[in-house]
């Protein structure tokens, strides 16, 4: 299977829809250990991205991702804006001019995005952030592809890793972002950024049906 601009645009459409549908849930999660804006912030950003997609159908994948990153940067604000913005722009830079992707390029793009989050956030795994969902997903995907696992199956494994990473933030004590201010009181709550990362990953994998059942679990787990 090969990735085209069409795939990317449909991924972004699904991401926008999922973020919109889960905006209140994300904000409520942020209210518990942050400042109650994560859902609203991302929804504002992805709504802006959505509005640009029509003009991007004839562009290459790198441009689509770069425009997405810039749009998130200039509309989201907060911590999530620079983090997701940087992630998309790094992936976009790597894929500049590309219209069709092989799995290996997809891995490289995801690794670039991950690296963008690490550098922008000056963050390591275990600090109770979106990285704790993103990193296991990218690593699982990379390893599966390297071992010759089929793309679809690799994606499923990666999504499961993201979900697990998201849940793993619950018992963590935050040391980055606003939740860090709470010290030990941040323990016991799922990180909003890790949760939005999970929804974006869902959109990437595109298994919307599976997601719909899952998302109820996520909400009730909170």
């Amino acid at each position: 299977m090969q990735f085209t601009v069409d795939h990317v645009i449909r991924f972004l459409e699904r991401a926008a829809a999922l973020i919109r549908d889960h905006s209140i849930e994300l904000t409520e999660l942020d209210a518990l250990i942050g400042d109650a804006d994560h859902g609203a912030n991302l929804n504002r950003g992805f709504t802006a991205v959505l509005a640009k997609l029509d003009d991007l159908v004839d562009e290459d994948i790198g441009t689509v991702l770069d425009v997405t990153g810039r749009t998130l940067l200039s509309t989201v604000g907060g911590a999530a804006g620079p983090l997701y913005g940087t992630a998309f722009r790094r992936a976009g830079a790597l894929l500049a001019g590309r219209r069709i992707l092989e799995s290996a390029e997809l891995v490289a793009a995801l690794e670039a995005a991950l690296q963008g989050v690490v550098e922008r956030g000056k963050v390591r795994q275990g600090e109770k952030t979106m990285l704790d969902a993103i990193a296991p997903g990218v690593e699982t995907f990379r390893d599966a592809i390297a071992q010759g696992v089929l793309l679809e199956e690799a994606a499923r494994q990666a999504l499961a890793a993201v979900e697990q990473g998201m849940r793993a933030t619950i018992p963590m004590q935050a040391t980055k972002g606003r939740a860090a201010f709470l010290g030990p009181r941040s323990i016991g709550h799922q990180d909003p950024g890790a949760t939005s990362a999970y929804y974006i990953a869902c959109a990437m994998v595109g298994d919307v049906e599976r997601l719909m059942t899952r998302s109820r679990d996520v909400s009730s787990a909170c």
Partner: protein
Amino acid sequence: MKKLINGVDAVVSDALAGLARAHPGILRVMRDPDYVVRVDAPVQGRVAIISGGGSGHEPMHTGYVGYGMLTAACPGPIFTSPTPDQILAATRATNGGAGTLYIVKNYAGDLMNFEIATEMATADGMTIASVVVGDDVAIGITELRRGVGATVLIEKIAGAAAERGASLDECARVARRAALQSRSMGVALTACTIPALGHPSFQLADDEIEVGIGIHGEAGCRRVGLAPVAAIVDWLCGAVADDLRLCAGDRVLAFVNGLGATSQLELYGVFHEVARWCTEHAFVIERNLVGNYMTSLDMAGCTVTLLRLDDELLQLWDAPVLTPALRWGM
């Protein structure tokens, strides 16, 4: 939730429109991207002082734009850092060729957005310096300390330096010294209600207060029983002065800040206790500021900031200022 608004999405936009209309002699409000700029910017040969942050803390920062304080301010949505393009646009609009100082509160979002703006502005050939404010002693780990009350004092001091023609290095130096010399701590009696959330962001019982709160509706570092203001001030001042290693005879600026829904009657009562506490410890309050200067929407509570003064900081503090929220000497 009841607020005097036209709708959750219009709050910041309407307030900016009102600000522009109320103070045309002091500032202009630019839209898309949003920033507020001194009416006479750019001033050739002068360092520009820029700050920004989420809205909901008014008058911080937009109310401090004007002569002798901020050259521009970038307001984000409520409690959400502004985006790099806002900061970049403000930087361009205020660039007088002498460089720009960003005053950034120590929050992940603020840091990253100002960092990206710095990368962009630098790529554009502009010279940027930054001062990060992290004065909240409620946070044990120094690197994590939030920027709270000291921000207002640092903006005033840096603005005064820029106004008298100091270089970018010089402005950054006094701002950093003011940051180094100030500490804060706050207490909340109620949480605030973020419009988009529609309910208070945490719940406190009728006999509970939250010590060490931030200004974004987040809970504090511990919850204790309601106490007389004298006891509360003892905790706050004790924590602040310890961390600042204040010594008998030190001169300070004492800043009692209301978080939005606390009456002036109470704030002056708080200041009375701060003054009592300083007298007991032989700290000399040379200047003071009492009022709602950095709020958290409609939160009830206060922060106490102490800034150790020396002659230079004192002079810069006393220098004339003309902004919507802080004005003297003109």
